[in-house]
């Protein structure tokens, strides 16, 4: 058996979703190669709708690479090649006819470091709705900005200074501004790549509280290095290691009684 076959024959340990939520994103045998190096060796996972799915695993395990496949962010990396199937509501997102800009409006993203535009707080949130033509009037746009800031639990803190620059906010507020910006275009899915790793514990708690509220309306996928955060915010957890998806299951199950030895070694802090 060649090495390539050995990697495709890998079996992920799966525990089904007891809540039986509908599937929002279906992925099968996703492989990503950067130049000569294969970073993901065939990952298959279904992401349930209106729930938080956490990707955990040591650095370089492929979790962020996989996350970036879901809104085709890997397209922007030179030499990156994605194979396999990724479907959003049964629609193949790698279909050549698909409009990537429209995809990224449906699948928003929040990054590790808050990255507000060097614009006012208002314009940061209004940017997406403007370019996607989501507001018919000025009042409409204002409405979208206010509700987005409210949904991101930021409105009360910034309502008197909407014209001030977004970069003047604290780190935690900036991150919630980025979340407000992401939800302003009414996405269906929000991808979060370590959204709290640059925040202090209070700001982290606010973002986690927000994530918990957002899952009523959005499908959320979060990559996190904090096992406790994954345990706190997610309903499902997927553990990646060396480009493989080792185990996926209900969060309660994965953190109290994981089925795979490698999952257990990782979450208990025994990784060699």
């Amino acid at each position: 058996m060649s090495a390539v076959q050995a990697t495709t024959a890998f079996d992920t340990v799966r525990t089904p979703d007891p809540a039986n939520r509908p599937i929002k994103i279906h992925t099968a045998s996703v492989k990503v190669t950067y130049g000569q190096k294969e970073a993901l060796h065939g990952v298959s996972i279904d992401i349930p709708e209106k729930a938080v799915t956490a990707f955990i695993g040591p650095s370089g395990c492929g979790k962020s690479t996989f996350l970036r496949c879901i809104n085709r962010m890997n397209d922007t990396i030179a030499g990156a090649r994605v194979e396999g199937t990724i479907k959003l509501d049964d629609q193949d997102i790698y279909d050549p006819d698909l409009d990537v800009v429209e995809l990224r409006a449906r699948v928003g993203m929040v990054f590790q470091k808050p990255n507000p535009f060097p614009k006012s707080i208002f314009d940061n949130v209004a940017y997406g709705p403007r370019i996607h033509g989501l507001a018919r009037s000025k009042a409409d746009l204002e409405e979208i900005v206010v509700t987005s800031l409210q949904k991101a639990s930021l409105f009360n803190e910034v309502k008197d200074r909407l014209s001030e620059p977004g970069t003047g906010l604290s780190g935690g507020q900036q991150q919630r501004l980025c979340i407000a910006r992401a939800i302003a275009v009414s996405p269906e899915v929000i991808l979060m790549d370590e959204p709290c790793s640059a925040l202090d514990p209070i700001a982290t708690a606010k973002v986690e509280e927000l994530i918990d509220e957002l899952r009523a309306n959005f499908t959320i996928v979060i990559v996190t290095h904090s096992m406790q955060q994954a345990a706190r915010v997610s309903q499902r957890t997927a553990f990646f290691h060396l480009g493989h998806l080792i185990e996926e299951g209900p969060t309660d199950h994965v953190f109290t009684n994981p089925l795979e030895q490698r999952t257990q070694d990782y979450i208990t802090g025994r990784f060699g």
Partner: protein
Amino acid sequence: MEHTVSAYDDDLKAIARMVTEIGGLAERAVGDSVAALTRLDLALAQRVVAGDKELDRLQHEIEEKAILVIARRQPMANDLREIVGAMRIANDIERIGDLAKNIAKRVVAINGVFPNKQLITGVEHMCEIALQQLKRVLDAFASQDDQAAGAVRQRDDEIDALYTSLFRELLTYMMEDPRNLTFCIHLLFCAKNIERIGDHATNIAESVHYVVTGRSYEEERPKADASIASTISGS
């Protein structure tokens, strides 16, 4: 496999060691209390009563240590189960200590009146099995042996059956001669205490099963205590 943070391993080992220690103390207390009963050894009985303080202290220490580890290291998966298991087991063992202490106190109360040696033999026999159970289940915890824990759980009905037959016997004695009442009632409580010790050993077996497998037993445990169904007219 060891933890990346070696002090974490030390913490877990310390908790396991303390559980072994408190278990050893409880075993001795139970053995001594019944020995004091059969020999009517007041000094030994008093030592058992005094020794219970140490059991209580250790149980507190295990609990505090476990809470500290949870606060400091946020244990997950098997580590978390082991810590929760240690806390539960220490609790059961502390109760076993209380029951031994209660038997010892009754030795003082019986105060040299000793009408029937045979009845004592029955209690002694129950105690032997309870002690074996306790020892085996503590070994099962130390070696994380789920099968051994399961065997302990299965065997508890033996103690229950002995308790039922002793109950009937004591009932007969009490009916024969009311002067036996005080002694027989004390003895009955002693037997009941040992039966309860067996139940705690079973609880510990269930904790061990949870620690090792992450699951709880689904089926009901076999029960053989029929003393509830025994009446004076029926016995």
